């Protein structure tokens, strides 16, 4: 499989802070990636580096086989929808859509028009006067209708209500099926997007801590609940992602149980429950913090 992005030992430092810290990964062509992590984990910095809007302190980035920095040939194949996108003073939504074809070779004006209806976006209101959700809708529409071979959505739906978010997911899937392209979706709403993703990258404190197929990741962690004694006996030396307890009861999240392990746990009177992608990521990203505090 060919890759669209190759990143090697990439580091971005702001003073003493390494916002992106010695990161290596690649992004395959025509897949939907989730770039997940907590606030300040380095998601936006990483995307800014990949789109040539920030300069790397160290390491190598290759997008479509070349460095993206000041590279028009690469950049015209990228759309980067940012949460904090700013527009010229006095711009209306229709001005944004009218200028979009200058930047995006694949821009589909009819599709954009349908999306405007879907999101009920007023075209002739000054953007300054739009609500936060309507502002987000502009970004989502640009990101979809641009059909850029490499599309970044950075928290694209601040202020969008649940209906509009579902519309975004549905349109994204439909259009992606017809016009395959590489999509990198950065979000906090992990449960909402989990099923859309083919691959998951989790960044925490500037480092990639999970780089895995979404399907492989699903079901990798299990919560084991029972009396502390029985849970401890079962868990033994396994890797524990999280541990909670009340009185004599314990709930422990462990990784990598086989079917035999699960049968053994049930036979020992323990209850097993699956851990969602969101829970798994919360547990993994809070774990590294605890470990450091404890160290």
């Amino acid at each position: 499989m060919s890759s669209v992005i190759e990143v090697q030992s990439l580091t971005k430092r702001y003073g003493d802070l390494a916002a992106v810290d010695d990161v290596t990964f690649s992004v395959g062509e025509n897949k939907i990636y989730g770039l997940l992590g907590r606030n300040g984990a380095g998601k936006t910095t990483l995307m800014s580096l990949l789109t040539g809007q920030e300069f790397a302190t160290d390491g190598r980035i290759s997008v479509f086989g070349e460095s993206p920095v000041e590279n028009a040939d690469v950049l015209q194949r990228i759309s980067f929808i940012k949460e904090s996108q700013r527009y010229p003073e006095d711009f209306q939504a229709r001005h944004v859509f009218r200028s979009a074809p200058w930047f995006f070779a694949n821009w589909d004006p009819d599709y954009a028009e349908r999306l405007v209806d879907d999101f009920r976006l007023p075209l002739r209101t000054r953007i300054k006067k739009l609500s936060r959700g309507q502002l987000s809708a502009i970004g989502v529409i640009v990101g979809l209708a641009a059909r850029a071979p490499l599309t970044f959505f950075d928290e694209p739906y601040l202020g969008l209500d649940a209906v509009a978010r579902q519309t975004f997911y549905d349109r994204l899937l439909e259009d992606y099926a017809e016009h395959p392209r590489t999509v990198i979706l950065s979000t906090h709403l992990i449960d909402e997007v989990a099923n859309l993703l083919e691959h998951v990258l989790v960044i925490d404190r500037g480092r990639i801590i999970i780089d895995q197929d979404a399907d492989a990741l699903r079901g990798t962690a299990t919560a084991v609940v029972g009396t502390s004694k029985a849970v401890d006996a079962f868990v033994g030396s396994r890797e524990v992602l999280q541990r909670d307890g009340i009185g004599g009861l314990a709930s422990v999240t462990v990784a990598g149980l086989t079917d035999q392990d699960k049968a053994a746990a049930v036979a020992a009177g323990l209850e097993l429950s699956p851990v969602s992608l969101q829970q798994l990521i919360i547990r993994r990203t809070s774990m590294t913090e605890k470990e450091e505090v404890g160290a």
Partner: protein
Amino acid sequence: MDDSRPIFVQIAEQIENDIISGQLAEETQVPSTNEFAAFYRINPATALKGVSLLVDDGILYKKRGIGMFVAEGARERLVTQRRDEFQADYIRPLVAEAAKLGIGSAQLAEMIRKEENQ
């Protein structure tokens, strides 16, 4: 979709259920992976994986340029397979629990008949 198992496995099961119930008859075309993806709101690659699983098992087959079809004899094979699973997943724990509670097989049969009549 539940979180405990890969989605593509659940998609394959869903298609199997439709074949067993007769909703997808043998030799009829099944929806495309893109249609599955849109309906279940999942990534098309995941839907493709689920469909491929059934192609590997010989439940579905591909007609070049047209799409996926339900194979002849698919329903019967699935029913046989599900009966074996039924034995393992339901009957075995049922018998074990019944033994724990001192319920003999005659009494167990009587209890099942009672359920049926409700």
